[in-house]
Structures are given as C-alpha cells and as structure tokens.
C-alpha cells in the first residue's frame, strides 16, 4: 500500500474537458469514494491513475515516485471494471491467477495457488474456481472481478462502480464485505460510484465531482452537513435536500448574501397549523414502513421531507414549517456560512 498524490490533472477528449485541475491526496490505507453523476469524470480520473489514459497536464505520484508516464503494467495498481471484464476464455481460477502469472511478478505456481485459494475463500467463490468465468451469475462474476484485484497487493485498488450491476440485496451484502476486506487488508482504495449509500458507508473521505472538477473532499459527515455548494448538498441525503427561495421565509435572520435556503429533514420543524399561520399544504404522503415521505406544497414549491408515521399528518393537512439551522446559498449556488 502507498500514498497516491494527484496534482493539477487535466484531461480533454476533443472539445470535452473530462478532468479539470484535479488535485487529490489519497493517504495510505484510505478508502476514498468519488461521487458524482454519469459524465462527471470519475471514471476518467480512475483511468488516469491506472495509466490507461495520459493526462494533458498534471502529475500522478504513486508511493513517492512520479508515475505520470509509466505504463499501466508498471504502476502496481489494481482495477475493478464496471463490466467485470473477466477473461472469457479462462476459468475462474485462471482469471484469479492471471495477474500473478504476469512475467513481471514471476511468482512460483505453488505461491500463486495458495494466494488464489485464499482470496477466493475471502470473497466466497472458492466453490466456483473451475467454472468458466462467463458461466457465473452477475454477483459471482462481480466477486471474481473484485478477487482478481485482491490477489495482488498493489499500491492502490481502483474500483469503477464495482457493485452497480447487482441487485439491491447483493449490492448491500457485497458492500459490507468490501468494507470488511478493506479493513482486514488495510488497503488503499479509490472507488467510483454514483450511489450515495455506498459513498456514505464505505468512504473514509468522499470526493464529489462535477463536470470534471473535484468540488469538495471531506469525510461523509462533512460532505453531508457542511457542503460547499448546492451541487454537493444535493448529492447526499434521502430524500434529497429541498432548495427554496429565501423569500419563502421572510422572518429568518439569514446572511445578507443568501438567496436560497437548503432544507433537509433535520432542518425542518413541521407542525399542523390553522389556516392563518400555515405556509404549506400536505399534498401527498408516501408510506415506506418505518417512515413516511411527506410532500408539502409551499408557495408552489414541492418540499419533500421525512416524517414519523405516528405524526398523523395526512394529505390535505395545513402545516407550518420552521427552518432550524438550515444551509444558505448565494445566487451562484455557493454556500454562505452564517
């Protein structure tokens, strides 16, 4: 394991600026999750670290040496691809042994065998070792793909949405497993996802990406409670944060530059109210079991928030909303701190 330092990375594909001035230090043993929608540049950033793409500017340093122009095979990184990319002509065993049999590693077959079996047991595919790699279920293939990275002890593991093609149950299981494995191995991982739950649960730090730029890097808690702008704020939280014009709440002592108010469930106090002091009307209640999603119409803005199923609020009720320590944003969408 090693520290990986990205500094001032730029990458363009024709007119499209995929990566713009990204700098990031991934500490030894850190699990960094890059979060962002499709097209934000997350995968490109991984490929730059892997050496599958060359940056137009900037450097990639791995374990203290400049690897910017080093070919992928000499970088000592492991990559888990979104589409598994298991070698279809090989068995599971051969797939796992493939990186170890590379000429640059020159490992003994006995050592390879031991390592393959150890990791196969770790990701629980040891009963499938002799299967053809393509004759597995999606979850098994995904585990083989992860195992193929884990058989090595590279400087850094790069994972490109490794759980995205799985069903919800399996994704949950593998997520826990991945975190456990990372803790056991003390691995350094750079992980790409657009799934906020994966980001929140796996990351030691989250990097939020937007149109090729790394907008904010911080612990999951920091990103959630202290976003730098509206974009970051909207990345995390279920239901998503509500943005309302400040004018909806005239009585607030907001910072002068603030134009927009951001309200999560915890920023809102909701009380049933008589029609005179009411500001909103419950238009719809979604029952999720342990909690309800409350849709409230506030001056033609839809506010979605969680509520206790026992609150008794129902469609048509008039309510009063009181913001409590909300987030403020200026006209450009940047955070204004009180």
């Amino acid at each position: 394991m090693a520290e990986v330092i990205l500094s001032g990375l730029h990458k363009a594909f024709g007119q499209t600026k995929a990566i713009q001035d990204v700098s990031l230090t991934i500490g030894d043993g850190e699990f960094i999750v890059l979060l962002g929608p499709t097209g934000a540049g997350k995968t490109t950033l991984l490929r730059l670290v892997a050496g599958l793409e060359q940056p137009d500017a900037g450097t990639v340093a791995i374990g203290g040496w400049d690897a910017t122009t080093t070919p992928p095979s000499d970088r000592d990184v492991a990559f888990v691809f979104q589409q598994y990319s298991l070698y279809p002509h090989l068995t599971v065993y051969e797939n796992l042994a493939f990186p170890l049999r590379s000429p640059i590693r020159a490992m003994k077959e006995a050592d390879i065998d031991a390592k393959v079996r150890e990791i196969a047991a770790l990701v629980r595919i040891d009963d499938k070792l002799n299967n053809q790699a393509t004759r597995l279920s999606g979850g098994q293939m995904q585990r083989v793909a992860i195992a193929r990275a884990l058989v090595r002890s590279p400087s850094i593991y790069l994972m490109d949405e490794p759980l995205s093609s799985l069903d919800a149950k399996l994704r949950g299981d593998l997520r826990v497993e991945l975190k456990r494995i990372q803790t056991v191995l003390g691995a350094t991982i750079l992980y790409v996802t657009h799934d906020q739950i994966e980001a929140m649960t796996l990351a030691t730090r989250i990097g939020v990406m937007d149109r090729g730029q790394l907008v904010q890097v911080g612990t999951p808690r920091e990103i959630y409670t202290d976003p730098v702008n509206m974009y970051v704020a909207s990345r995390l939280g279920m239901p998503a944060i509500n943005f309302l014009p400040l004018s909806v709440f005239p009585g607030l002592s907001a910072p002068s530059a603030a134009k927009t108010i951001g309200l999560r469930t915890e920023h809102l106090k909701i009380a049933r109210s008589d029609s005179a002091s009411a500001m909103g009307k419950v238009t719809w209640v979604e029952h999720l079991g342990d909690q309800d999603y409350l849709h409230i119409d506030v001056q033609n803005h839809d506010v979605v928030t969680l509520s206790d199923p026992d609150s008794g609020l129902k469609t048509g009720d008039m309510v009063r909303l009181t913001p409590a320590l909300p987030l403020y944003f200026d006209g450009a969408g940047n955070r204004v701190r009180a």
Partner: protein
Amino acid sequence: MSARSSTAHSVVEPSSTSKLVASVLVVVYALVTMIPLFWIVVTSLKSPPDSISYPPKIVFTPTIEGYCNLFTNQTRQTPEFLATLPPATTACEKVTRERNMVIVGPSNFTKRFFNSLVIAFGSTALSVFLGTIAAYGFSRFKVPLKDDLLFFILSTRMMPPIAVAIPIYLMYRELGLSDTKIGMILLYTAVNVSLAVWLLKGFIDEIPREYEEAAMIDGYTRLQAFRKVVLPQATTGIVATAIFCMIFAWNEYAFAVLLTSGDAQPAPPFIPTIIGEGGMDWPAVGAGTTLFLIPILVFTILLRKHLLRGITFGAVRK
C-alpha cells in the same frame, strides 16, 4: 407445448413443413454440387478407355491405373523386351506391364503437390499473421487517415488480381522471383491480406478493449496482453480468415500458370498437363484432382467447429 403449438405457432421456431422443404432443398443442392466431385473421383478409378467411353460408364472395373500414371513416368516397350525383365513386384508395375509399359521413375506430381502445400500454407500463415496485427492496429489505435487506409486496402480487391498479371510478371522477372515458392507466397499474401485485415478487424472490434486494459493493469505489456487475451478470443475469426485465404491460395490457377513453370510450380497448373499416350490421361487427371481436394477438405473439417461460428462474422458472440 405440443398440444398448443398447432394453434399458436412460434415466430422463432420454423414450422415442420418449412423445415421439411428446407431439408429437401439442402439435400438436392448438396447432391447437385457433389456430382462433379463424384465424377472426378469415379474417373480417377477408371481405365483410360473407360474414362472416355460414350455413353459414360457408371458400372466399370475399378483400377489404380490413373494413380499409377499420376505418380510415375512410363515408356512403351516391346513385348520381347518386357519378357526379359524380372517379374513385376508392385501393383503399379503389374498394371503398366499389361499395357506394354514400364515405369522409368517418379513423376513430378509429388513435387508439385508439395509446392502447393508450401505455397498455400506459407501464404495463409503470412496473410493471417499480417492481417491480425494490422487489424489489431486499426481496431485499437488512432491511425492517421485510418478510413482512407482501410479503403485503400479494400480497393486492392476491387479488380480481379489477374488484371495486374503483366506488371507482376515483368516485376517478378526483374526481381528474380519468377518460378520461386517465396514469390508465389508473397503474391498470394498480397492478394489475401486485404481480406484478412477486413475480416479480422471486424472480429477484433467486437472484443472489448477492457480485456486488454485489465491485462495491462494486471502486469502485462500490450504485446503480452494481445497474445494472452486478444488472440484466444479472436480464434474464431482467425480460423475463418485462414480458411478463406487457404482456399484462394490452394486453388489459384492463373498466376500459377503465368509465373511458375518448373521448380515452384504448384499442382493446379500441373494437373491439366498430364498427357498420356494418345491424348489426355483423364484417370490420372482425376486422380490428381482427387488428391488435390484432400488437404483443403481436411483443413476445413479440422477447423469446422470454429468456421461455423466464425462465418457469421462475430454476430453471435456472447
């Protein structure tokens, strides 16, 4: 299922009637195409008089005379001289003695046949090798003027190769490549390589790049990744391409006639020149043709498994 299939027919499954019609058509077509082949084999087993008798003989006494004439040179001798010879030992000697002939030595057929093998396999191997690496290059790398280059490569097949026969003849004479096996290998490779590049590019395009990227990250150079990951997956395409190249190089006649006469002459121009006593020796020609068919048949049968998948040009991968 069977109870309901009479009322609701599947769009995908052909009905039993159309299956029957299709089978009959295939069998009839196969029979029609097989007739010339059948006739060649039959002729190779006839005696020369039987082979030219009219009406053609279906029932005849098979003889190996045609094969003997193909593999040996013979001269006619007087019965008195033949009587002085020791008794014939081999089957061929016996057959020829009956016609007052003696075997004076092996014919050129074996050599010509060997030439065919060397030239066909050599040019196929070279075409497929060049085709594979060129196709990989075109498929994976930014090549300046890629589309124009590919079109240029394809355009070399737009005219019949024989259209350039005279320039090639003159060029080969200057270069000392006339009547050499290497010359023929190069020529057939030049014709086949465009086909190979185009066919193989299609196959390699269908192999996701991620496999090579994975291999390169796993510690392999691009060349090693190409060998370990791309080649095994391109086998189908490589085999299909090899068969096409092989068939062309094996059967090519016009250039072989024009450019070879002796040492490097392959079988196709040689077989029709087999002249026996008193005209064409049809059984020997039949024998030569029959034997000539065998290698390509074996080659195709051996690779049939790949060919059946390959000939769909990668349409059914995965």
